[in-house]
């Protein structure tokens, strides 16, 4: 099991690189960096593993695949923590409630999300990115799925049905 020290080291490096990147370089879209770091470190782990333990038996092959999966899972968990917990909807709500006592009221909290603009705070954050990324087209205040968005929507709907998730979107 000493082979698992390799992904462990890579996970620590991934965390440090990500932290330094967001604190020092402050990129507009950190996920591109996270993805690049994760892929490079996976390649590094694979090369190091194969150098130290060439694939002579099925045990070696299982060791390599499990090491890469553990490493990728840990990177994905950090990435998900960054985007879902720190940046996501529930995390943001808890941030607001924890830091702004005036929002400790259901209607005032909802009001803070409605905002003053033509679209609410939640859509205002997402729609420009979705349009820029080619997921949806927005014309005359009307949204239309583009082919890329259609594929994602069909896949999501299939997941709703397969795993009995209702209509997802954090609504129970």
């Amino acid at each position, binding site marked *: 099991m000493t082979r698992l020290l390799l992904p462990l080291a890579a996970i620590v490096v991934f965390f440090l690189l990500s*932290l330094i990147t*967001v604190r020092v370089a402050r990129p507009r879209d950190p996920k591109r960096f996270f993805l690049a770091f994760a892929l490079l470190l996976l390649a590094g782990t694979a090369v190091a593993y194969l150098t130290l333990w060439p694939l002579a038996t*099925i*045990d070696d*092959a*299982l*060791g390599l*695949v*499990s090491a890469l*999966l553990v490493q990728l*899972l840990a990177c*994905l*968990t950090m990435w998900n923590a*960054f985007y*879902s917990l*720190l*940046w*996501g*909807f*529930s*995390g*943001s*709500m*808890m*941030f607001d*409630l*924890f*830091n702004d006592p005036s929002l400790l*009221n*259901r*209607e005032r909290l*909802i009001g803070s*999300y409605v905002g003053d603009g*033509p679209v609410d*705070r*939640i859509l205002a*954050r*997402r729609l420009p990115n*979705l349009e820029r990324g080619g997921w*949806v087209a927005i014309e005359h*205040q*009307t*949204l*239309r*799925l583009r082919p890329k*968005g259609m594929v994602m*929507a*069909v896949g*999501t*709907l299939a*997941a709703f049905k397969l*795993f*009995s*998730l209702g*209509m*997802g*979107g*954090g*609504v*129970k």
Partner: protein
Amino acid sequence: MNLLARAIVVAIALFAVQALAVAAIAAVRRRANVYALIVVVACATAPLVFLAGPSIVGRPLSTEGRAFLALMHLSLGGFLFHFMTLPDRSVTLRIFVELLLAPGRTLTLAALGSRYGVRTMVGSRLDQLEQGHFLSIRPDGVITLLPRGQRFGRFVTAGRRLFNIGSAN
């Protein structure tokens, strides 16, 4: 089949079996928490994978090989857990599905708001946070953060400071 390809095929099969097991249980127990199901399925089947390792792989395995196989199985459960957060929690994916199901596959912003608006989103999340004992809500709407909610709030605040996140959502 070469060794690495065999290990990859085994990984794909283990993932598929876990996903199907979770889907089958979720279909029967519709009110069950899908994340708890994933954890239970992965943890409950990991010892079976360890014991049945040679049969699953089709080759003799050392104890270390069996342990790697069980670890692989648990990691794949972790991936399924992460995957599930996408359709289950993502606001963006829900918007895509609302558009897919809409007549002509188009929606005005107002129509989208009436199907999946701020009141629904915030209200539902607040209800879930209340059920999870993160906060309590009085009948007059006053919210009180419970100890678990205080810890979550502190964690998010510290994490945002650490990662330099000015504003979100």
